[in-house]
């Protein structure tokens, strides 16, 4: 019922279906083609957007490569991500070389299975740490995005639908969090929680930065969702539900929320990209992922010391971060175009 374009707010989508029929051969042999639902229509639009799909592929590739970090670490590099090897040696071009020279200079990229991208000052394999760092960054980004979606949706739903006291409490709370620059707020809270932890979660857990990022960015979803809910609650289908005797909680979760789903879905990649970036900022500044664990942010910070002699140390994690965020953003744009009825015009041109 909720997604029935006939009575829901996606009635607007019905117009889109109509116009899409025009472009997609609505008349087949003089007969009406079967009705197409908005989700199927969105999928159809998405499939046509090759650039967005290519970047989705890139993102999936990055995720898969990072997920396979233990395989690379164990079977190829044969060293763990936090395993020090300062006085060790590695064979490069038939010659034994120090992983870390006597004056403390780590070996640069060998482009072999061992120390492919070189070592850091502690003799740790940078390629292994890059992949593990990616896992950490993606895990934090993913968990933070889930927190953002859950908290932001709850904020927006309760505040927008119930209004009154709930809105009076939740809206200022969202405004308060919103008013702080995310990086500064993240550094302050991250530093404090890194020392003391958060309840049963220890200070060096990756869930600490995930939680911080999730809370900081929840108003960025909560506020637009609230606006959407305020619009939806005045629609006829909500009145119809009320007339049927449905309570506010049931209306919120079975009538209003499904109709706001497309808005929420559009925000997922956007928030994931923001979460990945904030995680990198915080870790770069020492308030995110705690040593000895790696993330792309910590690797960039570590590599900064070698920017002149071995720029790849900071450039490669930087590029990985940029590629990931870019792929998520481009895919997110495609998703928005697919779910946004007005995007129809652009797809047609």
């Amino acid at each position: 019922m909720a997604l029935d374009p006939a009575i829901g707010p996606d009635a607007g989508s019905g117009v889109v279906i109509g116009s899409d029929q025009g472009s997609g051969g609505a008349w087949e042999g003089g007969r009406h083609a079967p009705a197409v639902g908005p989700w199927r229509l969105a999928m159809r639009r998405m499939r046509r957007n090759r650039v967005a799909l290519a970047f989705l592929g890139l993102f999936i590739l990055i995720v898969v490569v990072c997920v396979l970090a233990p395989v690379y670490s164990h079977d190829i590099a044969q060293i763990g991500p936090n395993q020090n090897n300062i006085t060790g040696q590695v064979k490069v071009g038939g010659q034994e070389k120090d992983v870390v020279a006597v004056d403390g200079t780590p070996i640069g990229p060998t482009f072999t299975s061992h120390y492919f991208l070189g070592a850091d000052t502690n003799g740790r394999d940078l390629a292994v740490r890059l992949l593990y760092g990616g896992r950490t960054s993606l895990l934090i980004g993913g968990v933070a995005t889930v927190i953002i979606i859950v908290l932001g949706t709850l904020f927006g739903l309760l505040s927008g639908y119930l209004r009154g006291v709930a809105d009076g409490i939740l809206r200022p709370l969202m405004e308060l969090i919103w008013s702080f620059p995310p990086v500064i707020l993240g550094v302050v809270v991250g530093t404090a929680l890194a020392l003391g932890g958060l309840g049963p979660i220890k200070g060096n857990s990756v869930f600490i930065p995930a939680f911080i990022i999730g809370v900081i960015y929840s108003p960025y979803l909560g506020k637009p969702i609230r606006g959407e809910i305020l619009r939806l609650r005045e629609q006829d289908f909500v009145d119809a539900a009320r007339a049927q005797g449905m309570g506010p909680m049931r209306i919120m979760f079975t009538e209003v929320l499904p109709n706001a789903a497309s808005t929420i879905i559009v925000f997922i990649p956007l928030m994931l990209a923001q979460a990945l970036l904030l995680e990198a900022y915080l870790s770069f500044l020492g308030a995110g992922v705690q040593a000895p664990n790696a993330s792309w942010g910590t690797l960039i910070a570590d590599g900064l010391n070698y920017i002149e002699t071995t720029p790849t140390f900071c450039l490669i994690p930087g590029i990985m971060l940029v590629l990931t965020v870019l792929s998520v953003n481009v895919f997110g744009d495609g998703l928005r175009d697919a779910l946004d009825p007005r995007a129809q015009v652009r797809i047609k041109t």
Partner: protein
Amino acid sequence: MKRYARTSTAVLLAALVALAVAACGGSSSKSSKSSSSGSSKASSAGGKQGGTIKIVSGTPPLSADQGLDFTTQGNELYSTVNLSLLTFTRGVAGTAGAKIIPGLAKSLPKVTDGGKTYTFTLRPGLHYSNGVPIKASDVPRALERDLKIPWQAASFISAYIQGGMAYANGNAKTISGVVANDKTGTIAVHLVAPFAPIVDVFALPGTAPVPPGTPAKNLAATGTVGDGQYKWGPITPGHSYTLIKNPKFDVPGLPRGHVDQFTYSVNTNVLANAEAVLNNQADVFDPGDTLPAAVLDKVKQQSDRYQAVPLNTSWYFWFATYKKPFNNLYAREAVLAAMDDRALSRLDSGFQTPDCHLIPFGIVGHSSPSSCPFHNPNGPANLTLAKQLMQKSGMTGQPVVVYGEERAPRRQYLDYFTGVLNSLGFKATEKVVNSGVYFTTIGAPTLKPDVGFGDWNQDFPNPWDFMQLFAGDAGSTLNYGYVNDPHYNATLNKLDQQPPDKVASQWAALDQYAVNHAYYAVFGHESKPQFYSSRVDFAASPLSVEYFLDLVSMRLK
């Protein structure tokens, strides 16, 4: 969406690279403005007089006030502002630079009462930089101020001078053991028990007199009015400090300083600091910082303005010896056996000389590294022994939190040491603390951490200065592992009554005793970089074992 499709690949790639570079940030300021300026004239001694020298440091002093601060960085600066009754030789490299000579006092103190009373006599006609005459009673005022603020090394006064503890606890109005006579200019210091290092304490800037009216609070933004070769100029606490030559300084036999002004700027990016000196945009790289390996090759090529200078420092890890798992001797010994001092030296850009003893090479009582019991400091770790000891200890699987500092190479040490503990079977996790508050944090009585990093630069050339770090009853707040060994304490209290060179072998034996009991895991003694711009007269500006930067001797070419 179509816009992306139309965007050229070239633009995308260019943006990618630009973003990646931006993510890495910038490494240093490229200002070409010269840092050295000011008047200059040839001196009769042949070196240039005047000018400004710009020092760059990665770490600020805790305060410009010598009544609070006891950091290496602070001592470099206020040792030129606050001259004490005694002082250390200036302008001399090596251990000879740690010789104690009279400062405001006419001569070295007269020792009576079996080593329990030290009497100083002020030189006549001394003045502060503001022209106020210096009186004998200014010395006890300074000591009382030290206890009120309190000075980071206040235990030197409270634990060893009669009435010091009572004053510190608010049970007395004065320190009864310090008696000053303004008419005769004498200051008599009565000790609780004979304590030879008190001579060294009265050479520290923290015991320098302060003029009447100096508030007993931390003057972080102004420093105190002093009596030394320099006086404070503008200060931005934590960021920049300025020293201006004191034209009124005139103490016979002591150098007056050569440079008109020093500016001391703090930038936590040590690499940027090193590059600034390399490019002559700054004049002095603070020797308290570690030269990053990334620029070491380039710096080493500047043989006319760079050298590594062995100074009296010890770097170590300490253990909480009163609780699990490090109340177990085997567990501590296992850690010592598993440490590879050569690896730790490499983390410090090769500036560490591996050793297991706390008393460094330049101090009386040092032992040879060959007597290290658990592994050869110049060889690999003894992992076989380490695993055997670990098995004996029964501490496998014990959780341990390792504390360390944020700045390089200390954080890298933390990573290494945590790795060693985990390889032995502990469940070790790290706690990185901001360098500015690290020692305050781990010294907090409420924290009582398991194990962590420590380093110590000499306050004065006496083995007691190092060995007191692990004393359970010497009033030390630096004993982070709460080591409390009756034999250790008793021996320390016996040896500190004698001049060190008379009991050198006993100091060495005490150090060896502590190593054998694995109370600390010393891994080396650090050399410091003497690295200046090409404007500074390198030969005439040696590093001091006492002050690190000897600003009074420093001069421009």
